[in-house]
């Protein structure tokens, strides 16, 4: 009976097959092949691009990217959690205004805002350092930490906190034993939403780290735009994808322990 409505899916199924699945396999294909320079149609399978990646200089780039992303994520959490908690505590009508003020900068072009940091940091003298890159990433990604945590906190049933108080918990204990554990799904979502763009970002390190500054994102860009080495670029992309899938798996597990469902702010 609902065959008509079921068929609504088919155009999209074809679309994602062409635009998502095939490119996905293409990247994988390029990462394990090498074609002859004179005739690109002739290729052979090889793992040399992956071997290439495991050279010290590239591993250093990867570990630096991960390190900076972890730093960014941790700082976003430390700075963002209190903010989310304070916002959740304000009155409903004020809350909306504060939230709006939080989201508003996100609507201004990311590159413009990053460029503004070039100006500010240029005066302090830390421009083109790791610190500058981390500040730029925190600035760009902190709303993605605050909003899910805020959503998770507001979803907590007020009577649970009252129950904790009733059972003898003071407000600090109630926070530690009730509010914080129940806000975990929001924290997990926040961590994912900050870590993912941070680890692969390439515009922020480029603008705040300088032209010679290379993170994993920049390394990929270089292969495609500068060196025209698609095979190696694809191999790095595959490794980055695997890295992210592993960390997602890991976060999903800890998210399930903290409660069901992530809180995406939209």
């Amino acid at each position, binding site marked *: *009976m*609902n065959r*008509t*409505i*079921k*068929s*609504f*899916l*088919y*155009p*999209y199924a074809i679309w*994602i097959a062409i*635009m*998502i699945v095939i*490119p996905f396999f*293409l*990247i994988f294909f*390029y990462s394990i092949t090498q074609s002859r320079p004179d005739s690109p149609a002739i290729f052979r399978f090889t793992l040399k691009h992956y071997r290439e990646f495991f050279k010290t200089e590239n591993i250093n780039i990867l570990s630096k990217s991960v390190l900076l992303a972890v730093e960014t994520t941790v700082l976003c959490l430390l700075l963002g959690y209190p*903010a989310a908690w*304070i*916002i959740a*505590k304000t009155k409903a009508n*004020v809350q909306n205004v*504060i939230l709006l*003020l939080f989201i*508003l*900068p*996100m*609507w*201004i*072009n990311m*590159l*413009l*805002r990053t*460029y*503004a*940091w070039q*100006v*500010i940091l*240029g005066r302090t003298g830390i421009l083109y350092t790791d610190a500058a890159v981390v500040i730029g990433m925190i*600035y760009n990604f902190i709303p993605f930490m605050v909003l899910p945590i805020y959503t998770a906190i507001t979803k907590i049933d007020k009577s649970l906190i009252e129950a904790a108080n009733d059972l003898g918990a003071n407000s600090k204990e109630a926070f530690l034993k009730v509010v914080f554990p129940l806000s975990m799904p929001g924290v997990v979502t926040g961590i994912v939403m900050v870590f*993912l*763009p941070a*680890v*692969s970002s*390439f*515009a922020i390190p*480029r*603008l705040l780290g300088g032209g010679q500054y290379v993170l994993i*994102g920049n390394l*990929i*860009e270089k292969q*495609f735009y500068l060196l025209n080495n698609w095979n190696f670029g*694809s191999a790095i*992309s595959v490794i980055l*994808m695997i890295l*992210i*899938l592993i960390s997602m798996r890991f976060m999903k597990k800890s998210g399930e322990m903290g409660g069901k469902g992530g809180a*995406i702010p*939209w």
Partner: protein
Amino acid sequence: MVKGLKLQHKIYLGLMFLFLYAPIFVLVLYSFNESEAMGRWTGFTLKWYNELFRNDTIKNAFYYTIVCAIISTIVSTIFGTVAAIGIYYHKKRVQDYVLNVNYLPVINPDIVTAVSLMILYISVGIQRGFTTMVLAHIMFSTPYVILSVLPRLQAMDPNLIDAAQDLGATPLQAVRKVIIPEIMPGIVSGMLIAFTMSIDDFVISYFNTSGGVTNLSIEIFNMAKRRVKPTVNALATIMVAVVVMFVFIINRIGSKKKIEYRLKEEEK
């Protein structure tokens, strides 16, 4: 402004907002600065605005950005809504397959999505330009529309569709008269996400266009890499003004609706 909060909480929020708004303030301020070098105030001028309006590269980029955002938003909203309704009516197994693929552009780093699409275009021999950019935008926005519409569908009482058909609606009428109004908030938020993402996109556009077609993000990136002129600040100021105006209008509409709603509540 924030009543009932402790002083240290107010200070904390205040510092947070200082952090969030300082760069924007700097951008706006130096758009009126006489000197070309940023960081030193030498006097008020509007010449950068004048220069901005005469800059064809920026005007073109602006045009492409807006047109691309409008087309990709309309297409991905319709496409995503229709697909979400289709997904909802399929068995769990089919749903899982489609949603897993649908998730790929969401969790994959933008740069990976970007280069994979670029490889596709080049392998098939499609010249990259405006069309490929729009297609790329549709590709990465539609999953967000689906993810924002689907929960609405799942939250909907499944009997509503039965009820509509029971009262004489064909499946298509049931979709139009019951499902669409029911999931409208999801469609609207999906549309807003699609629009914002398209306007703001840099990485995916950067890899999937060429031949002089750019968007604002790409232009800003190219300018920021080199020595920057305050024309960029002028552009930023205009964008801030547009965003603030937009928010103001939305808020006015919102509060008007709120008042109407309250009046209705009081009637009871």
